[in-house]
């Protein structure tokens, strides 16, 4: 009961943020130079035709009314129309979303699978060689821009060593996508037992996920390290040593479980960061996700997809934070019961 209330309270707190996001997103496009009606009407439109178009699109209405139309449009799933594909943005988005999700989740997984043990080892063996190596790897991951790491990976693993397939999309040439269940090719092909597709999709996913994941290892590892260090000095860990609990219990149960709480936070932040950062990586690897879509839209000044991308990233961040808050409650009894 207490937990249900907690979730509801968190959810209620997310609403004002979402409202703010929609206002900022709308205002930005409202203030941007350029007239969408002019784009739609074409270069040879007469002033009468233009005015007619503006009226049709509701651009002659007062600001609040336009905002209201925009928001109610969103609720109906209407995100506008892309000028370059000529299709509703929502349709394009839904089609491309699984590709982005697959890439981001794989990157997050890489960041956690490498970052978490690296952080724990760095904390437990503080100021030793392991700690220094972890620090260098982490700083390199953050300092290298993704487009550079991506290109380097392509150069080394595809061009020189021929270990990875060509960086073109989610599947190798001639491979059929798996039956649509979640839209994530790796999971769908696993579920349907389609091993050829699984192999191909994993091969294609490997480099972009490594590129994006590398930039997120450092924040995870650093966070785990500093939290572990703090917790290893805490009273209850000292008490656990004094009580003669075995080393692995003290470090991997008592300390690590407590350290995971901040790690959940950082995972949420990192996921939002990946969501925004994937645009570059998707471009490098011709990944057919929404980041790539947004970059294309940006280059062709196609406003509806850009607006929707910003809104989408913001909403995702809010949602992930909500999920993080809920995860807190599951892990930490102090939140669950107060």
């Amino acid at each position: 009961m207490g937990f249900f209330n907690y979730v509801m309270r968190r959810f209620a707190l997310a609403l004002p943020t979402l409202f703010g996001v929609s206002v900022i997103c709308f205002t930005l496009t409202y203030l941007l130079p350029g007239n969408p009606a002019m784009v739609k009407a074409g270069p040879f439109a007469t002033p009468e035709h233009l005015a007619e178009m503006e009226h049709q699109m509701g651009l002659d209405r007062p600001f609040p009314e336009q905002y209201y139309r925009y928001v109610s449009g969103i609720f109906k799933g209407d995100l506008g129309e892309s000028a370059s594909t000529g299709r509703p943005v929502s349709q394009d988005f839904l089609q491309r979303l699984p590709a982005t999700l697959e890439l981001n989740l794989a990157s997050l997984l890489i960041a956690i699978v490498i970052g978490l043990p690296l952080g724990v080892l760095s904390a437990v063996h503080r100021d030793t060689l392991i700690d220094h190596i972890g620090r260098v790897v982490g700083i390199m991951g953050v300092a290298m821009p993704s487009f550079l790491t991506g290109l380097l990976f392509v150069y080394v693993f595809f061009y020189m060593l021929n270990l990875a397939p060509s960086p073109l999309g989610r599947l190798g040439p001639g491979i059929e996508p798996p039956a649509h269940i979640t839209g994530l090719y790796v999971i769908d092909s696993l579920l349907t037992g389609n091993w050829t597709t699984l192999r191909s999709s994993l091969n294609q996913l490997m480099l972009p996920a490594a590129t994006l994941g590398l930039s997120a290892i450092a924040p995870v590892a650093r966070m785990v390290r500093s939290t572990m260090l703090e917790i290893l000095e805490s009273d209850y860990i000292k008490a656990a040593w004094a009580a003669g609990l075995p080393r692995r219990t003290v470090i991997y149960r008592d300390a690590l479980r407590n350290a995971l709480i901040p790690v959940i936070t950082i995972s949420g932040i990192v996921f939002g960061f990946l969501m925004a950062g994937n645009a570059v990586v998707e471009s490098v690897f011709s990944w057919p996700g929404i980041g790539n879509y947004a970059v294309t839209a940006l280059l062709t000044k196609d406003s509806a997809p850009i607006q929707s991308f910003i809104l989408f990233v913001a909403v995702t961040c809010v949602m992930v934070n909500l999920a993080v808050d809920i995860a807190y409650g599951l892990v930490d009894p102090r939140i669950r019961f107060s």
Partner: protein
Amino acid sequence: MTELLEISDLTVHFEINQGAIEAVDHINLTIRRGEVLGLVGESGSGKSVTSFAILRLIRPPGRVSGSVHFDGVDLGRLSEEEMRRMRGAKIAMVSQTPRTALNPLLTVGKQISRLLMVHAGLSPREADKKMLEMLRLVRIPAPEKRAKQYPHQLSGGMCQRIMIAMALATSPQLLLADEPTTGLDVSIAAKILDLLRELSAKTGAAIMLVTHDLGVVAEICDRVAVMHAGQVVECAPVRELFHNPAHPYTKALVRSIPRVDRDVVLEPIPGSVPSLVNPPSGCRYAGRCEWVMDRCRVARPTMIEAGPGHVVACYGFEERRGTC
């Protein structure tokens, strides 16, 4: 029969950039079976470090020398694994911060029962049964309900009872109680002390009670060792110490106890505990002492007999003994 705990020449240094902090300086102490020894001194006098050193829990940059014999066994010679089996099982610790010394993510019942599983090899069910017994022993009301709660749901006094239950669950022979009543209000503190005394009598466990509070010492200790700036300056049975303090520091401590039964002016001790970074040789109380002489600043006084079971390290006392 050997003493339960014999500490000889125990020294703890912490290496830092400016030199070394001598937190504990060549102390000698013994604890007999079943007795309650008070270790008193101001904050920063090395009391807590001493108990961590006994458990071999001083980590770098800390360095320990000297020896600790427990029940005839030289703890310094045990392997890390053998030492771990000692901790919590034979020598248990009660911390000064009951609230933060319990793991916030585990129910208190689980924290007790897992010790029983680790040290006594009990099955989960046996451990739970024994855990509830322990909760009853430390007089936790509604133990079945409390066992399923988390530390933040319990009061400070309740947490301290849990800590005591945890420490005594494996029937240790020695309990290191580090300021067990800090942060508890007076009536709860008194109950915790009574409980400690009663349980030690029941289980035969000796207690080393680390405290800065002479009132606590008077209440439950058999013998007292007084520490000042990492050195033990005096050690005596509790009555002897209060009626016949030999060291000027002990005298000052005794005079600084507030009295309600007599109309005396409270006397604070001048100065504070000296810096322990590269301390001078000689008596570390010299800078605050009313009896100070030249030789006090040069050489460190050794322990001399001041009465039955009463030893003191003070040149001033040595000189005056013949005269008064």
